[in-house]
Each structure stands twice: as structure tokens, then as C-alpha cells.
């Protein structure tokens, strides 16, 4: 079906199911309970999960398949955002033209940067991309302020032209982004007993695009082109000796992943029409590298999981303050309560970075294949009984995880 093998169809179906049922899955705890703190099923965070998922899927096409470690992908995300916001300012509030323009602009931009950077490989390539991204960030932050509005970020105003739409909404405020009349911010709230589930129009637009992006990535992974990219990763020199020029392939992969990043940037701006320069900072580029490695480099699902993981920490753990901690441990005797709060305190709230760092270290040390490897090991643990393996695992090269898993 869809030109995929059965196993892949299942994987795609699982991704689609997860994406569409996310409002339920991410809100496991009843509203108002102590655990509600850990709910992640509100529109903004769900949108971020999916958007960064798309970003990481695209990044993985470059990093996972060709092994080229780019440290500048945030620049494409930023360029995509700026193009989308300009589209909202000049043309209309419909998200379709904005997203299309952001993909095109990011594609062109990545073509230029890729063309220059791909002349080198390894660390030199990483440094080149990093340099380009930092250059873009600094330009956006100050020099190009007329286009990017500098530190404040590009925002919509009441006196934007919007040729195909209205400059002001019906009630005199700035109009909101929409898809042929469906407002991206409109949310349907469902109360089911103690639970509250939020279904956001913008989220579902993102989710549909995520499934499409995932499908496309799957097709690329399975195509002869994907095989060629994997050959580049395995041994580029040998590939050259066979008379093949690898550069067009790597450049194509670079541009495709740049376009994915542009798509993510355009979606981000569509959900929340603002583009800030800090979206292009090197920390943002580093973030997508972390997402990919955390989830599992070269796997299809891994980067999406990694993206969700990091965004969850950033948004949920950073909001746990001392007040909340005291609430949790209130039932305990005073001395014990304070001790526990004191122990937990450095890891939550402003310490969310540290918790994430520790998790990352643990994953890299114990699960080099990322969260996906963790999942596989668990699966193997349960499957061991019915599949007696004859080989001595101690003296056997570890099998590389299948790229689809």
C-alpha cells in the first residue's frame, strides 16, 4: 500500500494514530489533580512536538543517512519563519501561501549554503554550517533589522497591507492565521468526566503535515536515492573510486532537509505569527542535533521521539517551582518535606537544563542508538523466550538497528 512494505505501513499507521490521538495520549491525568502538572496536551506544546518532529525528521535525512553533521539547520528554520510572517504581512492570513514560500526560500537558502559547505566533509563541514548559521543570526539580530525587526522579532501590525486579506479583523484587531476560514487558534474543548481534552485546528493541520512529511521521509529512506546516501555515509572514498560523484546526492539531501526545516519554520509562524532571531541561534541548531541523537540517529521514528522529549522537558519541567514541590510533599513531616524539596529543587524549574543534560548523557553512554535502541532492547527482552538465539552475543559484532525501527 502507498508503495510501502507492510512493516512500513504499520509504522506509518502508528505515527498517524499517535499524532491524531495526541490530545488524549498527552493528557492522561485528570484536570485539577496534582499530576495535571505533567499533562502536555495543550495546543501550543502539541504543535511544538509536531513541528520540531518535522524539523528533526528532515534533519535526520541529512545526518542520519549521509552522516554529514550540520550545525546550521536552525538558520533554515528561521528563514522559513521570516518568509511566512512576511507572507502574512503582505499577502493574506491564509497559511498555505506562507508555508509554500517558506519551503521555497529555505530550499534556495540551503542550496547556496550547501553548495559552499559540502565542499568539505567531517568537522570542516560542521564548522562551515555553524559559521553560516551564526552569520544569519547576527544579520537577523541587528544588520537586517528593517527585514527582521531585530531583537524584537517580526510581528504583524494593524497597518500591514495584506493585499488579498484585510489589514484589520472585524473587531479592529490584527486578523489571525487561518486555513480557508478555519482559524488556527480555534480550539474545541471536550470535558469528559474530570478530564479536559483540547482539539486545536492548528494542531491538526500540523499533524496532517507531519504524517505527510513522515511518509515522504520513509519513501526517501527506502528509495535508491536513500541507498546512495547511506553509501556516502558508509564509505565516501570507496564510492568515489567506483566513479560516482557523491556531491549531487549530498547536496540534494542537504536541500531536502533544509526544506523540511523551512516547512517547520513556516508552520511555527503559522501557529504563532512571530519570527524571532533567536530561532536561528546556534543553540537552536544544536537542539535539533540533540533531538536526533537522543531519539536515535538514522531511524525513522527516533527523531520525532527525541523532539518530543526535549520539548517536554523545556516546557513542563521548567514550570515546576518550589511552590509546586511543597505541594507534592505536603503530606510528609516538615523536616522531610524540606529535605526532599531541597534535593529535587536543582533538577526542576530553572534546573530543567541539567535534568535534560543528565538524561542525554545517560542515553549516549548506555543507549548509543538513542531511545529507539532502548525500545528495541525492551522488545527483545520480552521476545527472547520464543526465539532461541544460538550465537554468542559476547563475541559477536552488534547488529546495527534496522533503519525503519
Amino acid at each position, binding site marked *: *500500500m502507498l508503495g510501502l512494505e507492510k512493516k512500513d505501513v504499520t509504522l506509518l499507521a502508528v505515527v498517524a494514530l499517535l499524532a491524531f490521538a495526541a490530545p488524549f495520549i498527552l493528557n492522561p491525568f485528570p484536570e485539577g489533580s496534582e499530576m495535571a502538572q505533567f499533562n502536555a496536551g495543550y495546543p501550543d506544546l502539541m504543535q511544538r512536538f509536531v513541528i520540531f518532529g518535522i524539523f528533526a525528521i528532515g534533519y535526520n535525512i541529512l545526518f542520519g543517512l549521509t552522516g554529514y553533521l550540520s550545525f546550521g539547520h536552525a538558520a533554515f528554520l528561521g528563514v522559513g519563519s521570516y518568509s511566512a510572517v512576511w507572507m502574512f504581512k503582505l499577502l493574506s492570513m491564509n497559511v498555505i501561501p506562507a508555508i509554500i514560500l517558506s519551503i521555497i526560500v529555505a530550499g534556495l537558502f540551503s542550496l547556496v549554503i550547501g553548495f559552499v559547505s559540502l565542499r568539505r566533509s567531517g568537522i570542516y563541514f560542521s564548522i562551515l554550517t555553524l559559521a553560516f548559521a551564526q552569520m544569519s543570526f547576527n544579520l537577523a539580530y541587528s544588520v537586517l533589522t528593517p527585514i527582521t525587526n531585530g531583537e*524584537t*522579532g517580526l510581528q504583524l501590525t494593524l497597518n500591514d497591507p495584506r493585499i488579498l486579506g484585510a489589514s484589520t479583523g472585524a473587531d479592529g484587531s490584527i486578523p489571525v492565521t487561518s486555513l480557508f476560514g478555519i482559524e488556527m487558534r480555534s480550539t474545541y*474543548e471536550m*470535558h469528559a468526566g474530570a478530564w479536559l481534552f483540547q482539539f486545536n485546528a492548528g494542531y491538526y493541520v500540523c499533524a496532517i503535515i507531519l504524517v505527510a512529511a513522515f511518509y515522504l521521509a520513509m519513501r526517501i529512506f527506502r528509495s535508491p536515492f536513500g541507498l546512495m546516501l547511506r553509501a556516502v555515509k558508509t564509505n565516501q572514498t570507496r564510492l568515489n573510486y567506483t566513479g560516482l560523484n557523491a556531491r549531487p546526492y549530498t547536496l540534494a539531501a542537504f536541500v531536502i532537509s533544509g526544506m523540511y526545516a523551512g516547512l517547520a519554520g513556516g508552520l511555527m509562524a503559522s501557529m504563532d505569527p512571530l519570527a524571532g532571531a533567536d530561532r536561528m541561534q546556534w543553540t537552536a541548531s544544536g537542539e535539533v542535533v540533540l533531538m536526533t541523537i537522543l531519539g536515535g540517529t538514522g531511524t525513522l521514528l527516533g527523531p520525532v521521539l527525541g523532539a518530543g522529549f526535549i520539548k517536554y522537558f523545556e516546557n513542563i519541567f521548567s514550570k515546576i517551582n518550589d511552590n509546586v514541590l511543597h505541594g507534592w510533599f505536603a503530606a510528609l513531616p516538615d523536616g522531610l518535606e524540606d529535605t526532599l524539596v531541597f534535593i529535587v529543587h536543582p533538577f526542576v524549574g530553572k534546573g530543567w537544563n541539567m535534568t535534560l543534560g543528565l538524561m542525554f548523557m545517560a542515553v549516549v553512554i548506555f543507549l548509543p542508538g538513542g531511545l529507539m535502541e532502548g525500545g528495541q532492547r525492551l522488545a527483545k527482552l520480552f521476545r527472547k523466550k520464543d526465539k532461541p538465539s544460538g550465537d554468542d552475543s559476547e563475541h559477536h559484532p552488534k547488529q546495527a538497528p534496522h533503519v525503519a525501527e
Partner: protein
Amino acid sequence: MSKTTLTRRGVLKTGAVAGSGLALPTIFTASSASAFTNEPTGGSVTFGFNVPQTGPYADEGADELRAYELAVEHLNGDGDGGMLNTFSSKALQGNGILGKKVDFVTGDTQTKSDAARASAKSMIEKDGAIMITGGSSSGVAVAVQGLCQEAGVIFMAALTHSNDTTGKDKKANGFRHFFNAYMSGAALAPVLAKRYGSDRRAYHLTADYTWGWTQEESIAAATEAFGWETVEKVRTPLAATDFSSYIAPVLNSGADVLILNHYGGNMVNSLTNAVQFGLRDKMVNGKQFEIVVPLYSELMAKGAGENIKGILGSTNWSWTLQDEGTKAFVKSFGTKYGFPPSNAAQTSYAQTILYADAVARAGSFNPCAVVEALEGFEFDGLGNGPTLYRAEDHQCFKDVLVMQGKENPANEYDLLEIVDITPRAQVEYAPDHPMFAGGSLGKCNPGA
């Protein structure tokens, strides 16, 4: 390729399951129509405190958070009541707001517009915050203010000094108590002219982003009105940590005053470099060379240490003031935390109280009612003397302090002394002043 086989039974089964699945939500749906976003229905109301907890302004953020927690305590009737006792409006009873207990959630802005908006959105969408306050950079404040306008909640800006916040980026749902770059210039220039004479030549080093530019524009215009000449305006990258290469040309430019339009770590570094180069011991054009820092903060003063002595700048407020409001606030802050509050803490505290009071006077949490109650509101007793929340741009007008680095500080918190309290009339400007023109408040948005 795989082949999917459809059986009659399978299709029927799937159809039945899917149908009941689709019907399920409607069973539970209870439409909760509310007049505005996050209308508080229970016995409590939630505020969102969105401050930088990581990144370059984490210190300011921590102090803001302390003040917010103190304000919530006072609003709920705990503690000694602080400035509630000296505040001119007596609408607040110390039993929460309109009988509802005040709760709060916190978030980390990381001093990035994106992260700040994500954090504010989660407060609005997940925690049901009715008001967002915080920010310690103008970029973040403007970004979050725009978000709150769209979402239909009130934004009470804390630490943001750029003209744009209540200038070209002003919003009907946003309010600023802190002073701005124009006021810094207007307050500082007369003192500079009096002390250093009116025939000075100024050299500007400016952080290369929006706030730096408005600060530079404001102070240059204000000093030029007193006869000063602007020799050169040099932009420095925000990420710069070593300013020696920018200081050296100052010596050869013929300037006799250096104005540092820097904030935070930038200012600490540039001032330190300038002092190390011996600028302050130089005689240029027969006059003593001087350094000016238009925007001061206690935390910056601490960072710059010895170098700050005798250097002029401006602040919104100082804990050394002697009015009743300040004394009450410093006392309750000191009792709780053991040290005096900073500028940032005072404006955060004041904003929380002002919002609560506006709700109490309006008798409703509806953002539009709150906007109406705050517009044109005159009050006193929050540490800044008589203050007006101007209706035209939602900016507070009050006295501005000109401060100087103290020669002999008594302790590590006593680093700045008040040189002059510039009266409100002197820092006022027309709402359509060119430095603030270009934006419009729009209409208040109560949201869904």
C-alpha cells in the same frame, strides 16, 4: 507491496467501532460558555509569572520572582501587607481578589522571544492564567505583549526599558510601570549639563539591537538639547565581551564624555574596559573625562564593582528612598529574603498590586474592564510618588531617579546613591512624540 483484504464482517466491525468512537465525545460535551479567556470559576485565580530563570538575565528574573511571590502573599492576606498598607487605593481587602485566592504559575523565558511565548502560551492554555507578567528584555516583553493581546489576557510588563514597548509596539492589553529610554534621557541630561557643563563632546557605544538604538537616540537628543555635541555613535555586537578595541578609538576622537548604552553583562564589561584604559583619569579639551551609563541596575552595579564609583545613570526606583511605600516594601522584602529589593523587584511587585487593584475596582476579571480601570488611573504609595497610568499609551508617568555609584558603600547592597529626583513633569512627553509614533493600541481583547 502488500495486499489488503477486505471482508464484509471486518468492514462492519470497523465501521461500528469508528462510529461509536466518533459519537463518544458528544456524550461528555458540556459547553462552558465564558465571557472572556480563562474566566476564573472556582475559588482561585491564576497569575502567570514569566521571567528569565536561565540565561544572561537570570539574576534579574530571580529577583522579579521573589517580588511576585511576596505580592501574592500580601494579596492573600499573609505576611505584613507590604505596600498594600501605603497604596492610595483601598479596594483590596487582603482576602485575595474579589474573594478568590491568588495562585500562580512560573515559567522560564530564557530571554528568548520564542521560549517566552511558548511559556506564556502554556500558562494561558494549560494553567488558565488570567494575567501574565514578567520579562527582562524589551524584545521578550514586546513579543509576549503581542501574544497576550491575541489571546485576550492582560500583560503587565515588568523590566522593559525600550521606547517601543509603549511606543510603536504598544497594545491595548499591555501595561508598563517601568520607565523608558526617553525618560532616562530627559532625567539624566539636565544633571549631566549641570555637573559637566554644556559644551561637552559625547562618544556613544551602543549595544547593537532595538533597545540600544532607542536608548542612544533618546540620550543623544536629550544631551544635544543642552548644547552637547555627539562626536560618534558606535554600535557594538551584543555578544561582545571584550570592548578594548572599541575603547581605544575613543581616546583619539576628541570626545570628553563616553556614554555606554549597554545593559547587563555588556555594561559591566564595557565599563570595566573603559576604566582599565584609564579614561577617567584623562583630561581632554581641558576637562575631566567622564563616563555615563544611562540605565543602571543594582545587579549591574554589583557586577562592575569598584569601577562604578562616581558614575551617573538613571533608575526607576531605589530601595534607599524614604517614602512610606518604599519603607514598607523594603521591610517586608528584607524580612522574607534577607536583603533589599532591586529596581526589577519593585516594578514587578507594583505591577501585580496594580492589576489586582484594577480588578477589585472594576469588580470583574474581564480584561476590558481591567483596561478601563487602569487607564488614566492616578495612584500613590507604591514607592514612586504620585503616578499616572496614561490612557493613550498605557505607560506610567512618575518621578525618575538619577543615581551615582557610591564612593564609600556601607555594604554590598548600598552601591548607588540618589543624586536627583527628576519630577514627573520633566520626563513627560506627548503620546505622538516621534520616538514613540507608529503604533496604535488597538482595541482591548477579552478573548473567547
